[in-house]
């Protein structure tokens, strides 16, 4: 089977698998770290993403798009991790409430500049946070953000816009 849509980019399968990993994994680890804030988890996510994409060389629609596939896989794995953690946390909180415990209170937002941005980012809804990281750390276009998140360019634009609106409100002081 040959893919109809082809790319002229460099064949990602060129070179050894290990070379390929060293070439592509650093970006994947950094992206995973920004999305999880957990160094060990970021390494695991990047490895798993690489293995998934590399294991499907023969099935990739566009072999030149290895980076895009890898990025997309990292995003999905991070979001999947967050979703499971959220379910487990919600379960634990409901359990605590059921047996008379109190809901955990929200942590106050840090006032230091970097911490302020970091805390405001962390408080964003997950999809908005992912969109902002891809847009402003990865310097991706809205189309690429949409591709990585599996949504339309309009939806990606909307996610980034709403995230920025929220960040402005929380961090305060900046005019649009």
């Amino acid at each position, binding site marked *: 089977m040959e893919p*109809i849509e082809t790319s002229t980019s460099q064949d990602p399968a060129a070179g050894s698998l290990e070379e390929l990993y060293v070439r592509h994994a650093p970006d994947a680890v950094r992206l995973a770290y920004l999305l999880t804030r957990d160094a060990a988890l970021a390494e695991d996510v990047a490895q798993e993403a690489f293995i998934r994409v590399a294991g499907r060389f023969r099935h990739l629609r566009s072999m030149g798009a290895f980076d895009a596939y890898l990025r997309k896989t990292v995003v999905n794995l991070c979001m999947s991790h967050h979703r*499971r953690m959220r379910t487990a946390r919600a379960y634990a909180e409901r359990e605590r409430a059921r047996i008379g415990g109190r809901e955990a209170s929200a942590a106050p937002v840090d006032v230091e500049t970097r911490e302020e941005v970091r805390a405001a980012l962390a408080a964003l809804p997950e999809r908005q946070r992912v969109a902002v990281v891809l847009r402003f750390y990865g310097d991706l276009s809205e189309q690429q953000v949409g591709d990585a998140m599996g949504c339309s360019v309009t939806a990606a634009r909307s996610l980034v816009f709403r995230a920025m609106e929220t960040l402005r409100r929380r961090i305060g002081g900046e005019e649009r």
Partner: protein
Amino acid sequence: MTTELETRLRQVLEHDASHAPLVERAPDGLRPRVRRRQARSVAVGAVSVVAVVAVAFAGLQLFDGDDHFTPTPVQEGERPVFERTATIEGFTVTGPSDWPLVDYWPVARRAPEIADAVAQGETVPGSQWYPGAAGVPVLQLTNYDPGLGAPICGSPTGDNPFPSDGMGIYVGVDLGGTRVVSDELPVWPDTVTIHQPGCEEGTLMRFGIRRGGDVVPYLLWYGTGPETSDTSRAELDTIVDALTVSADQPEIRVPGTDSPGFVLWGGTNDDGSTWTIEARPSERNIDLNAVTRETDGTYSEGGFGDFDVPPKDIDGGFMGAVSEEAERVEFRPADGSPAAVALVSDIPASLDYEADAYYFAAGYPTKDDAFDGELVAVMPPRQTLDPADVPGGVVTDRAIIGEGVHPDAGPWTVEVSLVDLGDGLGPMPNLGFMFTEHGGSAGSVQPLEGAVFRGFGTTLGSPDAGGSHAPIDIVGPVTIDAARVEFEPVRGEPIEAQLFPIPERFLGPAQAFLVFIDDADVTHPKGDLVAYAPDGRELGRTWVGPTREPAGIVPEVDAVIRDLRAVRDAISSPPRFDDLDVAMLTKDTGVDIALGADPAAADVVVAVEDDDHAVLLALLPDGQVLCLGVEGGTNFRYGVGVATTYEGCGGGWGDYLLPPDP
């Protein structure tokens, strides 16, 4: 313009990213892990080639096929006919799927040639298409396969184009002939019927459609052959009556390709855009394209082409080509959830490609990174196998490591080989077993790297399928430290395996074990493979059986999920919804069960919907409810929340399940 906030964001993200772990070299064991991952896909090919057998090497375990599916044999190689509705350039036509439907609209890209041909009263160069009569063709539906050449309307000779009992419908943009002035045309659904040279022996209707401020003239022609029966004419009339088009369409746009294609499937998306899946000739066989027409009239396309069927039995993604012999096509998720079954359609004979096309309307992960499962062409039982015939690869080395004669099934061999899949990752080791007369199994395997077992292959289905009386085999690599290997079935006596040394060039230090299960009552072996040292010590064991379903995310959730699964299995095999004996069910499963829809009434409550459907409900300790819909004992749906109908339970338990083991 970059705002201050954006700048601060970038700075913080750059700063934080610098704290991410450094990657200086690839992790140990990267290649085997990629291979194991890859094996999930490769085994798909192995499954289809081995015919009998669902192969499950490299830790894939067995396919869970014992109670989910009821194979339906395909009659005489023909796929069942279904009612196909597809929209082409705004025209929605419904007809039987064995009537070839042609999307001709791509030829509109040849507008300059068409205009010249109309002006000169000639055919379009290189074709028998006479646009002065036929206009620019849009679509054509016929009860026979006329190929993708000239449309039925617009023959230069004006002859009846149909075979004796043929008939068809044609729609085109009207360019010539006895053209009615556009602004006098009635707008659809009003039409006028006018005789048209070149489209004889039928009925021709003209009408206009508003497009981008203009009224564009169209013609719709339908006709029959000289010996068409009244019943067939009535069928044609029904199809014509059902043809619809909105009188207001966006501006005329054309797709990216310029050749017509057979429409195999079609539909409409939630946003009003329409799609078709189309087959066209390609260099080697065919292309399959998914063509989407947006609500503004623009087109986008993408797909697969030049399929490797044969030698493979299936090739593609969410759509593709499959052997005409395949009984069905399934995507089997790795998490054990029910398989998605693809639609399968004959490919029109004029494309001269001896394969069928398949398409997953739902259930196939379209995102590559979400792909976690196996695409399987389920083949009829017991065909012969050439163990060297590994799909998509070239055998670079092979050795027969074991052979013998089974009293019922005759000669057999165990073979190990290296296969280059051409993916740049080097040769992949394969281990194969086959009966000379009855086929067998083959699949990729991994170096043991210190493990006792690492995957195995086996057969599924009745050992007597096809009357072969061949036993089920289980074969795989095991450590060279093992002096003895046994299969300890869930029920019955242990069965001792035969052992065969594997030359080190294939897998490193390893040997192969082979177990025969001759029990005709066993169709899906379940039990443990156990390896023993020379002194009788147990070295290790591995489970043989359906892939275990993922556990719940915390022990309390897992306990509830296990209860639900136990009840699901108890009421599904065989299905018994009409007269549920709750006491017996409780005894069988050890789960407190009640009838009704109040999840607090028991550990698991069963809401019977009808003779064929039931919903199981269970309350989690935190107050959430898990539902499990059962249809006919073969299909299942999973969800969160109180549902009282099978269809009402959906969305999955994903967030309540641990990820499956890698």
